[in-house]
């Protein structure tokens, strides 16, 4: 038993204790106990993951734990990376949760059921990457789905919309499970074994059709978990309605497992997929990236905005994964390794900044009671620490230096530029478009997060709730502080991850040498003569700031700044109603992308009764609905409902008829067997 295994056992034990504590302990003690257990669990997961990315490797077979198959666990560098990310997020969010789930606004988060499910959910987040057989994976996957569903439904007594979101989430996640079950069962049947070792051994014997089918089924299932367009509608519903610590866990750790699944199954177990499959993955990623960020640009609900941004970032990850597969299938492991490393780095970065963003959004929602950006504002003065944390995370999310998101997008662009040397018409067409998509989504992300930060936190409060906001309790601030420290660390010394990334990429079977070199302070791509040293950039920017600051300090007539009124065009001080809201901020973008977004608006003019020319009231309403949901899901649901209505005719209420169905069914099956199929 090595130390990584100790950590895993410790994590499981803590989860059990935490779940028991959640179920049994009373009131305030419960939240603290569950928070501590979950944080410990996260810490153990982080430790196990780091040991594995450091080169450690362990497997375990627990035959008694699951009837028939037994539980297989195996941790290598790839699963270690995902375990470490999940563990770190769980650790910080659990600390945050001890503050979040207390106080008058806590709602359903502090209830027994939720507190009992939380540690179990956290445990599955950490353990899913360690699963090493089909049945273990499916079991953990299902436990993850069920516990997260319970957690999403935490506030269902307060708001009816939570139930709606819960139904969408439950249905879509289980459709995903069905696809996954079908894909992996087919794979196991063809390979002649259900442990990952057996799958790896049997993969080479798969026919191209079987390989393609397995890939499509499994990729679709995992993509729906990652919130990819067009399987995304659960995401912008479940994430806003769940309690914020749960949204943080889902958005920062759970969706990653979708990407993990694709990498594990397609690269490691299948040993590569057909080229069209990778182009499909890349296309889905590109579509999700642009669609997600466009919807985020239109959203004025802060948590919905963040949820769509998750869809965008996972889209970028899948662009990297798809590009890696494309290069690998054309026999170019070096750019493939670089693209996969970029995707993994982006997963890490996204997890940390998105967890922080959701936590900060949760603090705001808790303090003001609103999620609508249009009704926030002025929080900078009232919640300075939260605003600072949100700003740090937003800097990561807009992919500009010195934020952490910039590094992974830079690496992704580098890998695509490097891949342009790969001959072949597919690469020549797909890669420039992918670069354009990444650039467009980066540009739109800048607009999105300027909107979220500038409209939501700056200026003056636009509602009573925002005006009465106060800073969050210390537990929440400490949790957010941990995540902010993570963001800063990843932004300034990304090279620390270098070896771990190289090992994880090697697990995926891309043996083109380490994709990155360089010490902790610099990322170097030797083949491209490109290098990036974020610490230097940050230092240079700071030096520039100090120089410019000193300049105006020295030349200005008086050292002290004095306050003056805002420019009001002579019409009296501007009121908060005059300032820009999130909706008005997004209006130009909405007009530019009118054809894509298809907004719905109607103007309702009520004339005064005596005269058709005098207007009594004008009502203007505009909504930017999720177009895919409207065009694809609504018709599908309507058709399903019609079929259901039609099927009612089969049920007349006659017991004889029902018994007859059973009888004829039995006879038909026997007949089919007798005829010999």
């Amino acid at each position, binding site marked *: 038993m090595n130390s990584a295994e100790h950590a895993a056992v410790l994590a499981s034990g803590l989860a059990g204790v935490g779940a028991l504590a959640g179920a049994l302990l009373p009131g305030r003690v419960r939240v603290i106990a569950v928070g501590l257990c979950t944080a410990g669990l996260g810490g153990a997961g982080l430790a196990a993951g780091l040991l594995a990315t450091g080169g450690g490797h362990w497997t375990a077979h627990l035959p008694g734990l699951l009837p028939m198959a037994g539980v297989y666990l195996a941790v290598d560098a790839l699963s270690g990376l995902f375990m470490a990310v999940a563990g770190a997020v769980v650790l910080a969010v659990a600390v945050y949760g001890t503050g979040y789930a207390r106080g008058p606004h806590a709602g359903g988060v502090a209830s027994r059921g939720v507190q009992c499910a939380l540690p179990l959910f956290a445990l599955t987040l950490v353990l899913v990457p360690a699963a090493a057989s089909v049945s273990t994976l499916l079991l953990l996957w299902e436990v993850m789905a069920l516990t997260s569903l319970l957690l999403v439904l935490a506030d269902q007594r307060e708001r009816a919309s939570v139930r709606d979101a819960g139904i969408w989430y439950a249905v879509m996640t289980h459709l995903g499970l069905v696809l996954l079950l079908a894909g992996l069962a087919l794979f196991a049947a063809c390979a002649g074994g259900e442990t990952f070792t057996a799958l790896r051994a049997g993969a080479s014997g798969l026919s191209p059709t079987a390989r393609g089918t397995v890939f499509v089924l499994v990729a679709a299932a995992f993509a729906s978990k990652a919130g990819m367009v067009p399987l995304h509608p659960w995401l912008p519903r479940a994430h806003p309605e769940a309690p914020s610590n749960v949204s943080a866990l889902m958005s920062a750790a759970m969706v990653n497992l979708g990407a993990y699944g694709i990498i594990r199954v397609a690269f490691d177990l299948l040993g590569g997929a057909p080229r069209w499959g990778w182009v499909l993955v890349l296309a889905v990623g590109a579509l999700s990236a642009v669609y997600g960020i466009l919807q985020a640009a239109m959203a004025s609900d802060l948590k919905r905005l963040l949820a769509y941004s998750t869809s965008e970032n996972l889209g970028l990850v899948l662009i990297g994964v798809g590009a890696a597969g494309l290069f690998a299938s054309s026999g170019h492991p070096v750019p493939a390794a670089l693209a996969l490393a970029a995707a993994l780095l982006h997963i890490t970065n996204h997890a940390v900044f998105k967890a922080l963003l959701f936590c900060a959004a949760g603090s705001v929602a808790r303090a003001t009671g609103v999620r609508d950006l249009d009704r926030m504002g002025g929080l900078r003065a009232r919640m300075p620490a939260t605003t600072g944390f949100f700003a740090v995370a937003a800097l990561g999310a807009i992919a500009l230096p010195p934020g952490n998101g910039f590094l992974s997008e830079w690496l992704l662009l580098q890998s695509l530029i490097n891949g342009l040397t790969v001959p072949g*018409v597919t690469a*020549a*067409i797909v890669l*420039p*478009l992918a670069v354009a998509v990444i650039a467009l989504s980066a540009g739109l992300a800048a607009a999105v997060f300027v909107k979220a930060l500038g409209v939501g936190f700056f200026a003056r409060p636009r509602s009573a709730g925002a005006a009465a906001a106060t800073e969050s309790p210390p537990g929440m601030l400490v949790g957010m502080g941990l995540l902010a420290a993570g963001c800063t660390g990843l932004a300034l010394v990304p090279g620390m991850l270098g070896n771990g990334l190289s090992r994880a990429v090697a697990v995926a079977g891309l043996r083109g040498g380490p994709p990155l070199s360089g010490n902790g302070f610099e990322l170097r791509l030797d083949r491209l003569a490109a290098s990036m040293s974020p610490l230097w950039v940050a230092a240079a920017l700071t030096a520039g700031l100090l120089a410019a600051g000193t300049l105006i300090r020295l030349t200005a007539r008086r050292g002290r700044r004095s306050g003056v009124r805002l420019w009001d065009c002579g019409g009296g001080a501007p009121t908060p109603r005059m300032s820009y809201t999130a909706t008005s901020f997004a209006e130009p973008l909405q007009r530019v992308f009118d*054809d894509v977004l298809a907004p719905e608006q109607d103007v309702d003019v009520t004339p005064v009764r005596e005269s058709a020319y005098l207007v009594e009231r004008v009502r203007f309403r505009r909504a930017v609905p999720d177009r895919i949901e409207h065009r694809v899901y609504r018709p599908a649901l309507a058709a399903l409902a019609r079929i259901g209505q039609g099927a009612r005719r089969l049920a007349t209420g006659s017991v004889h008829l029902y018994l007859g169905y059973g009888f004829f069914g039995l006879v038909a099956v026997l007949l089919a067997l007798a005829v010999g199929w």
Partner: protein
Amino acid sequence: MNDSVYTQLLDLACGAFLLAAVVVLWLRQLSSIIRVFALQGAVLAALAALLGVREGRWDLLAVAVGIGLLRAGALPHIVRRALAAGTPPPARHYEEDNSEAREARPLVNVAASLIGAALLTLLAYAVARPLVELDPTPATRALPVGLAVVLIGFFTLVTRRRALAQVVGFLLLDNGITATAFLAASGVPLIVELGVSFDVLLAVLVLQILTTRMRAAFGGTGIDDLRELRD
């Protein structure tokens, strides 16, 4: 003429040729569109001349002169005359410009057309790839350019409302076909080229007459008005 200079000039000519087609899609003012089209004709003539000099085929030079006269001179002139006939003298005051001189609202807006042109170019590249691989010389490598212009011309034909803009789209298409012929096989025999050019000239003349008649019948050259003829 050594190899690198030849390749360089050929590439430049092809680049300009493609660029002219894109600019046609970008512009709204019909008179500017015709000017760009004339420029494209000149570039096409230069392309033919370049190939002729390179391969020492003097008949190609004759073809080049013919193309120059027809596509940079005669055709733009005819279209311009049709335009001038339909455009009232410039209004004295600031009015909304609804005249025939502008392609004010194409069926697909300009930004989307430009993105579409980008995708069409990529498509042309993908389609021409196997052809290029048969015999990769500098000229055949530029084959996708000709194909892309054909597609962009077709796209213009489909999405523009004004009859004259459509005529230009048709001519773009034809320029693209000619360029493809030159790049793939260093041009077609002189007699075929003459026949094709004559055909095009005839088509444009017919279209010009048609445009005039349309204007007489509907007071404009919006193609959508033609729908009424069906009933």
